[in-house]
């Protein structure tokens, strides 16, 4: 029987011709990523000292200070400093600080390579699947094991096939696609499974949009969310790939635990309502709900295509005085690209506050925390209770287009009327 993309990658990474779901394999890791908030400071630094261990291959470790940058207080600054010093002490030269959100940087800097196994101390490491890698989130102790041995034991997941045929309607984005999938799977519906996306709607998407889809696979409980590499993937990597790679594809006779099939044309803008990512409704059901803050940014919804989509709606218009619009590009590269393309100017002219590329607001750390009684529309990936600040605040997750339309009205709004 043929293999799904996940099975094929994991087989290759443990030196076997084939694997099947539920096999436990010991796989070689291509890239181990840590952040500042869940980096060496949690368990790892102390344990490595006690063990007297060194990093198995510093070239394969990427350390990204993104959650506490720019630091909002002394404690955050100290954690970033600890992270920076740890990188230096253990010979990790791939250290990035204040350059953007880790998942965006793994893609931009060419670490997300087709066929590779990427582990990270952040649950959204499944983002790497957009470029045909098996990316998954792990805890600190597991990362300690990876740092020392370069290997990890994994249970081969079953794969759920997700197929989107046709073309999305104007004003409907990748975010709407993945929210709809999470609605149907449920937030634990793919626990211990991999998602594999296919169909013409996915194939037409630029890498920016694909990253948004894979990013949220974990919100259905999935271990990974892969998109088989194609010409768009290879073109994106042409100037970026950090090393040579072998693109793998699922076999035509691969076995899927189940397959969900959608027609893209019928999808309307979606929103995940408080406080669960699978509590998804169509935007027309929510229109008119008062909003205090719109957040456009993050590793889910702060890429160039996201900022461009928002700017197209905001161009020549003004953000409602009833709410504030905060923009944090996903990375410094996106920031500069959007600056040079005039996108930041359009957004700022409309009344947006343009901020540094950081995880701050998404995780309720800084740069856009919401207070008691406030309601936020956000292009990020989680709306758990208290996620962006007060436990008495509410977060609605939407696409960048919906976020822009909402900012104009100060109420949840359908972007399709501003196209």
């Amino acid at each position: 029987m043929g293999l799904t993309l996940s099975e094929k990658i994991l087989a290759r990474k443990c030196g076997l011709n084939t694997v099947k779901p539920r096999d436990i394999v010991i796989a070689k890791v291509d890239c181990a990523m840590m952040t500042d908030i869940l980096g060496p400071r949690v368990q790892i630094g102390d344990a490595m000292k006690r063990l007297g261990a060194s990093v198995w291959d510093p070239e394969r470790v990427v350390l990204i200070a993104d959650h506490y940058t720019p630091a909002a207080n002394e404690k955050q600054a100290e954690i970033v400093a600890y992270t920076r010093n740890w990188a230096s002490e253990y010979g990790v030269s791939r250290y990035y600080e204040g350059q953007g959100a880790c998942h965006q940087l793994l893609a931009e800097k060419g670490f997300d390579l087709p066929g590779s196994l990427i582990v990270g101390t952040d649950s959204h490491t499944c983002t790497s699947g957009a470029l045909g890698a098996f990316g998954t989130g792990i805890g600190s102790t597991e990362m300690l094991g990876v740092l020392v041995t370069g290997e990890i034991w994994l249970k081969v997941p079953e794969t759920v096939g997700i197929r989107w045929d046709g073309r999305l309607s104007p004003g409907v984005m990748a975010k709407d696609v993945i929210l709809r999938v999470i609605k149907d799977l449920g937030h634990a519906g793919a626990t211990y499974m991999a998602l594999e996306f296919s169909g013409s709607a996915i194939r037409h998407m630029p890498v920016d949009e694909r990253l948004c889809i894979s990013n949220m696979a974990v919100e259905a409980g999935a271990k990974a969310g892969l998109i088989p590499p194609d010409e768009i993937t290879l073109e994106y990597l042409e100037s970026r790939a950090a090393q040579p790679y072998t693109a793998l594809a699922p076999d035509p006779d691969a076995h899927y635990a189940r397959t969900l099939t959608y027609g893209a044309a019928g999808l309307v803008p979606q929103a995940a309502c408080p406080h669960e990512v699978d509590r998804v409704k169509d935007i027309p059901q929510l229109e008119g709900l008062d909003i205090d803050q719109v957040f456009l940014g993050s590793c889910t919804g702060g890429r160039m295509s996201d900022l461009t989509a928002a700017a197209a709606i905001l161009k020549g218009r003004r953000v409602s005085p009833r709410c504030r619009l905060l923009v944090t590009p996903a990375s410094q590269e996106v920031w500069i690209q959007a600056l040079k393309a005039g996108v930041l100017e359009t957004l700022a002219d409309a009344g947006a506050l343009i901020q540094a590329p950081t995880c701050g607001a998404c995780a309720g750390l800084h740069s856009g925390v919401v207070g008691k009684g406030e309601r936020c529309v956000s292009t990020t990936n989680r709306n758990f209770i208290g996620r962006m600040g007060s436990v008495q605040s509410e977060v609605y997750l939407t696409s960048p287009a919906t976020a822009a339309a909402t900012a104009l009205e100060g109420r949840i709004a359908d972007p399709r009327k501003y196209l």
Partner: protein
Amino acid sequence: MNAVGLNAVVIRGRAHKFGDNINTDIISPVKYMDLSPEAMSEHAMEAIDPGFAAKVKPGDILVAGQNFGSGSSRETAPLSLKHTGISAVVAVFFARIFYRNAINLGLPALELAESESVRDGDDLEIRLLDGWIHNHTQNRQYAFSPMPLKLLQMIQAGGLAAQLEQRLHIDKIK
């Protein structure tokens, strides 16, 4: 005191009962993640149960419904629970990363379909090796699949890192 030391084969304490989909933002709120693990643990569960950490006594058991520990990969979630004194977590099922993190930290995570029938405050006794839980309050017994011996050894050692350290120490003595 390490609540899951060498006596980890038998755990006895009060149940702290929660519902479905308790995510890592609830267990380990991000706004306290710049604190030490001990200080962080004082805020565990506070979004839905303020004062939780103060109520827990060493040996107590957290019992929840489906999908416990969903969300972030933060190991501070099981670490915080461990620091409050929680000695085992029982749920219908767990989110993947939390499950591995808990066991790697030496905190037993047990899947039990009957979790729903446990009430807050029930006096529970868990026999890790034998694979059963006795509910002394309701005079009921529940069976679960015992963990493999290798994982039990890891739990008794206090987690994967502690176990590695022990091994390293033994190697040096040899």
